[in-house]
């Protein structure tokens, strides 16, 4: 019977001690502990979230980087191709132009050579004619009696005449 009869003094002291515990621990222990726990949990939660976000962003960034790289590569190839084409065209043009120029120069040279030759020939002809006339004049000035002397004289004259 004693076992199941609650004692008055015990009830009194237990109530006192328990109320003390609830209020004091509630104020000085449970409140800060629960608050810190919550704080830590939210900070962990936030850290995980931001890590996930960062990872997602990295992924996005990597993808766009790759895309940019690919685009740059394509552009480079296009530019190179274009350049190669332009080079080929310029080369071809230059070759053609050079050929034309060369043939033009050759043509010009040929023409001037011909002209020079013709001028020289004319001059030679004139010279020959002039010389012939001079010769004839000298011959005609001398008597034409002695053929032998004539011959000698011609020879002498011929020696004198120099085609300068």
């Amino acid at each position: 019977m004693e076992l199941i009869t609650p004692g008055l003094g015990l009830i009194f002291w237990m109530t006192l001690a328990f109320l003390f515990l609830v209020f004091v621990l509630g104020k000085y222990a449970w409140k800060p502990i629960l608050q810190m726990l919550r704080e830590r949990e939210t900070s962990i939660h936030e850290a995980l979230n931001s890590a996930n976000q960062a990872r997602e962003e990295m992924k996005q960034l990597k993808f766009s980087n790759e895309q940019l790289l690919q685009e740059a590569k394509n552009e480079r190839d296009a530019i190179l191709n274009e350049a190669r084409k332009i080079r080929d065209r310029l080369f071809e043009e230059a070759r053609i132009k050079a050929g034309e120029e060369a043939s033009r120069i050759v043509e010009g040279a040929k023409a001037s050579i011909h002209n020079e030759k013709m001028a020289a020939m004319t001059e030679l002809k004139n010279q020959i004619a002039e010389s012939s006339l001079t010769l004839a004049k000298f011959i005609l000035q001398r008597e034409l009696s002695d053929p032998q002397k004539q011959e000698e004289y011609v020879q002498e004259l011929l020696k004198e005449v120099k085609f300068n």
Partner: protein
Amino acid sequence: MTAYKSHLPVRRFLVFCLVILALFSGRMFASVQDHTMLVPANDSVSEKFQKPESNPGEKFNAGKMIMEHVLDNHEWHVATIGNLHLTIPLPVILLYDGKLYVFLSSRFHNETHSYQGFKLDPEGPHKDKIFREGANEHLAAAGPALYDFSITKIVFAILLNTFFLFLIFTSVARAYTRNRGKAPSGMQSFLEPLIIFVRDDIAKSSIGEKKYEKFMPFLLTIFFFIIFNNLLGLVPFFPGGANVTGNIAVTLVMAVFTFIITTISGNKHYWVDIVNTPGVPWWLKFPVPLMPIVEIIGIITKPFVLMIRLFANITAGHIIVLGFVSLIFIFGAISAALGLGVSVVSVAFMIFMDLLELLVAFIQAYVFTLLSALYFGLATIEPEHH
């Protein structure tokens, strides 16, 4: 590294269990010492007073010994070394006829067991109760009532454990402020799983995310108060060993707190459901309000069951362990060899029971807290819109 850290609390718990176990072997040892003292005859009066069963002719009374250990006392018997009884006398506080009497219980250590007109009953059905001298020794005393507010063994244990709990948790709270935003350390990491367990698995799951917070101080206090007193009750040495949570007054106070909080925080929905229980045929409510009566009785029986469950579980555990101790002496009285033989079996069973009690200590704290939380949850639940 993290894996190691997460195992730390588990390891600490195992170490803690081992320590408890070691203390139990001590308890058995202490008990053996205690009762071998029953055999030699003692002449001194105070010895006789303290151990009345140590009369040479008297047989070992297991029931008496067990009840003495389970019940409250006006002094704390710490140990018996040889013929020396190490006892802490506790203050007696009496309120009688408007006057307060305060003195140490050792004042009763005389031949008449009385002091200042009060008498401590050393024997009989009201053993260890204090009466007004001359009054009839059966509680129906004539004259003004006597109120006993003494710091008894259990009160002393409650105050001591309250002080310990206060120290432990304020230091843990300081650790939280110190380690703000960092990983827990020391005692903090040992208690944090329990605190989170109470918060998430008891409060949040039974009361709900929105309202659990205002019940947290009570739930955490009651959980740690019960588990701490349960565990200390299993320790056989001085600060432990008092059957605090196995005392009906202690469980009564806790159950009354649960009852008061439930009643105060009960919302309209809660009371309407009690008076007009939904889903019950009308003829159970009118003309004879059978269901309302049952429901109103239920308000009382819920905390009543809380009180009985904790008290019965803890007391039963103590009684069983002490029963195994008694077996040794009962058989020892028949023959020393028999007692020795039985002691092997008894000790094995005692260790088993103590381990079981370790589990019970936790389970009962959990059950009391969980059921309190469930009652709070029932009282504060919002009606579902149909």
